[in-house]
């Protein structure tokens, strides 16, 4: 078993170089350390408030090896219940989603209310006086907080509050959440897939403005053929930002249509007045400048460590968890304004699928690239990836790698090994 290196990130400011060691993607010890020091010490996306509209609504979520019941109790409080019976451990929720007053363990029949309380124990008279239902409620994730409808959990009871953790990323969540006065909602239908590559490759790829011209040549050709043209000149955005705590974003203008709110011919002539109306309403509600920014810019937002909210030709919410150094599960949803008119919702979903998802005109090629990188690392273990683009550019553009360096610096900071932490990594790996 190899030990963690002293450093996987070579941040060489003097020479304007930034490199990442390829073993960071390959070593099982790195993944064990990431689980202990990153995934168990960060805020992790659980779900959106709109997915639990009614008391009793639940969604079963997989966060790595942990299965969590994201549920709204009959008291309307949202909870993150760990899906394991407090008796002998079987999973009490065995459906992907639904509405339930209670969850009954099928092994011995213990029953838990949708707020987690233990409310039924068959043959309870067999237990002695020390037995306490109160102490045997379903366990909850140590922390659960929400920001603008986005719920996060943390397994670190001491972690800073969610708003403090989000730092500059909150501004970009606001730019999404402000798109409707009625709030936003997750549209039905989950794109659930897996990629045979290290999870950090998807972090990089989700905010990579450099690869589009080559990797997505076919999408760009499709886009041009569909009549999309560049946006009117004037307010020109093209920037990569480090948002603090490992979060980062790209903010830019693009030729693709935006349901909120940039019309392209693919939406149809009939949709043009409606898009104008959406823009006008936004401006009336938020002021011209903010409305223009929301409607005109596309934004790829990465929230450390594993949440991506890309507000591009549609809004995708995408989270992913490593299962092994070379394997991750991915879940992706479409986020949209509540109360969107049906015709507009249809355009939004069509626009989403032109680029996004495992059947889109772009994502399959990203998956191909990530898996190809991972195989390439296996061929060249010990080599370094170069992430130096625009390292000395004062206002780094989206085709640089400023945003990736923000992630990697935080990653290295949390992972920074010392004797104790190597031992800890091994202990986790041995579990």
């Amino acid at each position, binding site marked *: 078993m190899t030990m963690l290196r002293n450093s996987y990130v070579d941040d060489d400011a003097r020479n304007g170089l930034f490199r990442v060691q390829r073993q960071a993607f390959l070593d099982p010890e790195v993944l064990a350390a990431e689980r202990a020091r990153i995934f168990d010490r960060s805020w992790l996306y659980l779900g959106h408030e709109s997915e639990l509209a009614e008391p009793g609504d639940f969604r079963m979520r997989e966060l790595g090896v942990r299965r969590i019941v994201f549920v709204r109790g009959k008291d309307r409080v949202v909870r993150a219940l760990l899906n394991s019976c407090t008796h002998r451990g079987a999973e009490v929720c065995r459906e992907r989603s639904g509405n339930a007053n209670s969850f009954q363990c099928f092994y011995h029949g213990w029953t838990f209310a949708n707020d987690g309380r233990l409310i039924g124990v068959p043959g309870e008279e067999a237990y002695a006086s020390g037995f306490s239902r109160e102490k045997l409620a379903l366990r909850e994730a140590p922390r659960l907080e929400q920001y603008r409808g986005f719920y996060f959990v943390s397994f670190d009871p001491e972690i800073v509050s969610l708003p403090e953790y989000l730092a500059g990323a909150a501004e970009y969540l606001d730019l999404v959440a402000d798109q409707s006065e009625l709030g936003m909602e997750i549209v*039905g239908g989950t794109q*659930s897939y897996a990629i045979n590559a290290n999870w950090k490759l998807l972090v990089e790829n989700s905010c990579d403005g450099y690869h589009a011209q080559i990797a997505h040549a076919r999408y760009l050709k499709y886009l041009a053929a569909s009549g999309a043209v560049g946006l009117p000149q004037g307010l020109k955005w093209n920037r990569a930002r480090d948002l603090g705590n490992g979060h980062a974003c790209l903010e830019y203008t693009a030729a693709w249509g935006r349901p909120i709110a940039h019309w392209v011919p693919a939406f149809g002539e009939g949709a043009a007045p409606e898009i104008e109306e959406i823009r006008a309403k936004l401006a009336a509600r938020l002021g011209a400048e903010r409305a223009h920014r929301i409607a005109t810019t596309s934004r790829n937002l990465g929230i450390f460590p594993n949440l991506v909210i890309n507000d591009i030709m549609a809004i995708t919410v995408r989270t992913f968890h490593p299962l092994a150094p070379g394997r991750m599960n991915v879940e992706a949803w479409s986020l949209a304004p509540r109360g969107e008119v049906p015709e507009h919702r249809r355009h939004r*979903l069509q626009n989403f699928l032109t680029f996004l998802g495992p059947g889109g005109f772009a994502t399959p090629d990203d*998956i*191909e690239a990530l898996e190809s990188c991972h195989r390439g690392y296996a061929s060249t273990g010990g080599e370094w990836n170069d992430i130096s683009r625009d390292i000395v550019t004062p206002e780094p553009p989206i085709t640089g790698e400023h945003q990736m360096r923000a992630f990697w610096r935080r990653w290295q900071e949390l992972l920074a090994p010392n004797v104790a932490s190597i031992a800890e990594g091994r202990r986790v790996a041995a579990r």
Partner: protein
Amino acid sequence: MSRPADARSPLLAADLSRAEIEDFLYEEAALLDEWRLDVWLALFTDDATYSVPSTDAPDADPSDTLFLIADDAASLRSRVEQLLGKTTWSENPHARTRRLLGNVRIRRTDGARAWVTANFVVYRMRSHQTATYIGRYEYVLERRQAGVRIQHRRAILDLESLRDVGKVSFIL
């Protein structure tokens, strides 16, 4: 099978027979496995749709639910052009595929149209890995003067997610 591309040819009012339908589906599957996608595309009507629902919403409508694929005739045409082009990296070099169709059921006929379902297993082989796609097809077939044409083609996966197969980068 390689009939002239004339999706606008008149609808003929005569029920499609089981033999015609099965022959058509098997020939269509062969075109896809042979990557003769331009010939395959010519089998679609001008108002055709090709779709693959998300695995947790198999019975949904693409106008209000996120699908994996929800092509109209124009995006299907583009999809085929892309798959035959050189920069669709996920299918260049393209995968081998082999599809098995069975349990063909003619659910309804209406003069020149037939509503057909069939079960499928589609194997995709690439990079020394085999992905197995399992599900059922829904078709609306039309008898046109130029031959049988597809107006609606939906591949509904029985897989609970795409975790075992990764993506749908080819025509399912």
